[in-house]
């Protein structure tokens, strides 16, 4: 039980920090809406509804990436990471707490992004798209948080995260776009499989990312 309490404390710390400083979420919101406006002008008039769905997924992945680059910024600037690693709790709790707070930011950004997308492009969002987005969020946050931890330890930092993240996000994009534009539930199932596989790997390996 104390593991979950640690996770909840860590996630609450990040959410409270965001409520006070408002560093990440406003940037994500503004970014996703601007991106959708830009995409409106990249689509020719007779472009299909399906192309708009593809662009939605581009916008979501890049918005997530924007949030993830700030993921460990506070810890790095204030040198909190050593303190967290020394705290008497399992190190994977740091990952889980961070992933939960990132998930909260991403879901908040999407509660604006999806209605804005529906308003701008009139694509007809169905339940399968929502399920796809929700499952993709889990995968993005699980993998992205761990990679953000890696990138924070490197010299290149913000530059490195997209390079590490995008190849791993390709299956998420395929599953998400498939869930939006193609029939059948197997894309949603595939996303659930991705989430399960990578969440387990991240949970088991985060300790090695933050320790020597």
């Amino acid at each position, binding site marked *: 039980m104390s593991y979950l309490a640690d996770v909840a404390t860590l996630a609450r710390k990040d959410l409270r920090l965001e409520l006070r400083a408002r560093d990440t979420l406003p940037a994500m919101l503004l970014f996703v809406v601007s991106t959708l406006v830009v995409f409106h002008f990249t689509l020719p008039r007779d472009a299909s509804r399906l192309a708009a769905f593809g662009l939605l997924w581009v916008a979501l992945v890049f918005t997530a990436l924007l949030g993830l680059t700030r993921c460990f910024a506070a810890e790095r600037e204030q040198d909190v990471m050593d303190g967290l690693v020394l705290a008497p709790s399992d190190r994977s709790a740091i990952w889980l707490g961070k992933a939960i707070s990132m998930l909260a930011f991403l879901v908040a950004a999407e509660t604006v992004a999806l209605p804005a997308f529906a308003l701008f492009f009139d694509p007809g969002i169905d339940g399968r798209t929502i399920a796809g987005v929700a499952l993709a969020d889990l995968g993005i946050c699980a993998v992205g948080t761990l990679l953000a931890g890696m990138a924070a*330890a490197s010299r290149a930092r913000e530059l490195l995260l997209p390079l590490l993240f995008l190849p791993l996000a390709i299956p998420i994009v*395929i599953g998400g776009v498939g869930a939006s534009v193609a029939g059948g539930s197997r894309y949603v199932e595939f996303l659930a499989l991705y989430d399960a596989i990578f969440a387990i790997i991240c949970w088991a390996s985060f300790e090695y990312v933050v320790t020597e």
Partner: protein
Amino acid sequence: MSSPNSRVPALAALALVAMAAAVAMVAFFAPEDADQGLSQKIFYFHVPIALTAYACFGWGAWKALRHLWKREPGADLESYVAIHQGVIFGALTLVTGSIWAKISWGVWWAWSSNQLVLFLVLFLFYAAYFMLRFSVEPGPRRANLSAVYALFGVALIPVSFLAIRLANDFIHPTVFTSNGPQMSGRMFATFCVSWAAMLLLAGALYHVELAGKRLDSRLRELRELLA
């Protein structure tokens, strides 16, 4: 230190002999494909190179696991060298696959060829591995980060393969398949010899590279002692 290095010339010679045998078998022993004719012979290089790249990535991930799990000394370097080999063989897979695609389908790049797309994804992934590795100071931290990322790679291979299969449904309605008619016995024998030759070549290159890297790090240690 000296005993594994003394095996390298023998391994290299074996790889050379096997490669010569494979080339000879491809040229003279394997029958010409009824469908694709002479151009099908690139199959005996393309597919073994691709399988060897997988083997290198798998070996690199295995060594990464040994590093994280057992703290095996030197496993980090071995993992890095194996992945380096894998990237080289992966790039060769892309090149040979592209040549084959041009000859049999008339295009240099076919998104409908699952294997080629998978190798492109893996190539990007492992190129990022190098970016990660060279942007962290050498030491235990770098070894850990590289090992975790290498482990992600082996999970990504089947997941990406599945994803690319799924993507064909909404991106390409028609799928080219590179499976011609069933392989005959002589074709299969040639394929096996080619694959063995490629694995031996990869093994020899791996040991040469590893010996060089070990020498480098020994030299650096000695320099630090002298300084």
